[in-house]
């Protein structure tokens, strides 16, 4: 392996890629896009306030309606004496958002009519009616306020996560969400940069420059230089994103507080300023980058071999499908692993090298994984990456010089013996 040539190849791959407009735009705009998508709804809801719904209630006996008034006095209006047909007409004309009809004899089976408003409206109405119905029944049985108070009592669960580093207040949800985001980022990165490698190899082959290059360097040097160059393009993107996100996290909480306090009441301002973007431990970033890099090496070797074996992008489909299956399986298991990180299936699948970048990363996020497990998964991945690079290089050195020959799996296995 000639190091100075490897560096030349690495530099070309890296520099030509990070100088492209596409790279600069996606690197800078993706965080802004995510920022907009996550924060805009918060800002909009704080400015706009909710649309006040008006629902007509026709309840001749009045019992249920009285309780509905207690629950939400602004939404429910009494229309006991208006004929039902007129009320329905008004609902279709959007005069009312909905109409509840309670039969005099059986208040347990009210009817609800609406024209627009959707599922959320129906579920709100159902919830309010259920509560009102329980209150009516409690009154009937004369159980008094004590029971109704008991019925509304809730526990105040304080969930904390224990790890060797100590106790952190964590309801599981935020680390769950971050685990999902990180796992998905790794999956996307492996897929995107794997395809970049594949297209890069294919491009050199279809440009017919590859034979010129390998009359100066060994094919394996070209392949490894390429793989590392593209891998560092991905790494650069992650570092830029991490910087942008941490500065957003730093500035966004006061920003939201500022916006909300101008428009809304002080109570909501206090509530929103407690919206914190959860901080991610430094060690998690390190693991994230290492899992990306080693995972990338495994998949990149496969993608490079595929790119070398075909003559055009359309031919890649057949060869790519098994690789894609291996990338998708961990995404299917992700939900299970994230919610039950110590279950046997979660533990076993997180050791499978091709799944580790996504699944072990997820387990690290949601549970306290002993270091030896992480180390073991790295050892297995590094061994697999070495094997794949070795096999990939064998396919690559033959494939790049093979034109006009349709590469089947059988053919490719033959190449490995050349």
């Amino acid at each position: 392996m000639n190091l100075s040539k490897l560096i030349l190849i690495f530099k070309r791959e890296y520099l030509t890629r990070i100088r492209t407009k596409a790279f600069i735009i996606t690197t800078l705009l993706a965080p802004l896009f995510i920022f907009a998508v996550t924060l805009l709804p918060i800002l909009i809801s704080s400015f706009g306030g909710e649309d006040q719904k008006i629902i007509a209630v026709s309840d001749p006996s009045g019992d249920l309606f009285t309780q509905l008034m207690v629950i939400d006095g602004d939404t429910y209006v009494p229309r006991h004496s208006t004929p039902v047909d007129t009320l329905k007409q008004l609902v279709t004309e959007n005069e009312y958002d909905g109409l509840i009809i309670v039969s005099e004899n059986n208040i347990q089976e009210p009817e609800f009519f609406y024209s627009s408003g959707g599922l959320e409206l129906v579920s709100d109405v159902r919830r309010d009616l259920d509560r009102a119905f329980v209150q009516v029944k409690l009154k009937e049985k004369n159980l008094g306020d004590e029971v109704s108070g008991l019925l509304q009592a809730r526990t105040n669960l304080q969930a904390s996560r224990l790890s060797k580093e100590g106790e952190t207040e964590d309801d599981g949800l935020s680390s769950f969400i971050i685990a999902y985001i990180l796992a998905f980022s790794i999956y996307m990165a492996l897929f995107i940069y794997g395809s970049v490698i594949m297209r890069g190899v294919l491009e050199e082959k279809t440009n017919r420059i590859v034979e010129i290059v390998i009359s100066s360097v060994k094919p394996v040097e070209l392949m490894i230089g390429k793989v590392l160059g593209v891998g560092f393009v991905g790494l650069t993107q992650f570092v830029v994103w991490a910087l942008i996100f941490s500065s957003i996290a730093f500035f966004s909480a006061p920003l939201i507080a500022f916006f909300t306090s101008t428009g809304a009441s002080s109570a909501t301002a206090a509530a929103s300023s407690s919206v914190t973007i959860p901080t991610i431990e430094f060690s998690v970033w390190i693991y994230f980058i290492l899992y990306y890099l080693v995972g990338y090496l495994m998949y990149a070797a496969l993608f490079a071999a595929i790119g070398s074996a075909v003559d055009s992008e359309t031919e890649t489909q057949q060869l790519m499908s098994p690789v894609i299956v291996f990338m998708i399986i961990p995404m299917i298991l992700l939900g299970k692993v994230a919610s039950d990180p110590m279950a046997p299936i979660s533990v076993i699948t997180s050791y499978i090298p091709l799944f580790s970048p996504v699944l072990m990363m997820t387990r690290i996020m949601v549970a306290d994984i002993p270091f030896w497990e992480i180390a073991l998964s790295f050892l297995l991945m590094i061994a697999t990456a070495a094997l794949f690079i070795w096999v990939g290089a064998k396919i690559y050195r033959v494939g790049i010089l093979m034109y006009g020959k349709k590469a089947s799996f059988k053919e490719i296995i033959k190449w490995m013996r050349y």
Partner: protein
Amino acid sequence: MDYVCTLDGVTKRYGKFTAVNSVNLHIPGGIIYGILGPNGAGKTSTLRMVNAITAPDEGTITILGQKAGENSQQQIGYLPEERGLYKKMKVGEQLLYLCQLKGLSKSKAKESINYWLERFEASTWIDKEINELSKGMQQKIQFIATIAHDPEIYIFDEPFSGLDPINSELLKEVILELKASGKSIIFATHRMEQVEQMCDNICLFNKGSVILEGELSKIKRSYGENTIIINFDGSDAFIDNLENVRINNKSNNFAEIRLLEGADDQQILRSAMENAHITRFQLVQPSLQEIFISSVNSSSTQSAEA
């Protein structure tokens, strides 16, 4: 004599297929050496091994006294049959990259690139991307990429294929210039007229083996003046009645007739005069095309019999 490139019992197999079968070649320095042969004869496989792109399964290849490998690659400028450039890279950066891969320092590479760009009147393209250039311009850049690191040996695989006539002439000029400055040139081609005009020595590949090797003039002489070139006015019916000959080439008023054993050139002349008005009758050495076809055919029949 000093050999710049020696192949000794070189064999290359791809699975069960033997692409190159125990080839021995001794390529002298300072000359133009032509490697000929039909498609699939093993020319490109051989050149790839000489360039240390692939390794022989058996035998050794020696380039300028050392085993073919990473070091010998720097001494060779290779223009492969399948060639191209990075489409989205600037001319200057691309040439610099390829020169540096050949082991040149940055400053030396720049100097040489500037010289050749000027020589090919291409200096103004240095900041253009390859896909902005016309096909002919790209071909010029391709030559420069092959020769800019100033190697001792130049290997051109089908160099004239796809070239426009102007670049064809230019490349020929450059090749002869390189030879004049003492460099060694190996080129593989099917184009016999180019070989006849330029090559000093040739070898002929068929089915992975070398079936003919040596100085072009000696090879041609060894066949003797066994071919008749005849130009005439009138009917060509007499040609079909000749005995012990093979008609290599026949058009309206022209024929190239190969004399086989028992043929009498004077008899052929007489029968020609009886039937047509003869404007030219000449005994010549066979053309390279003729040598090529007859050697390949006879070696193929031999191997079929064996």
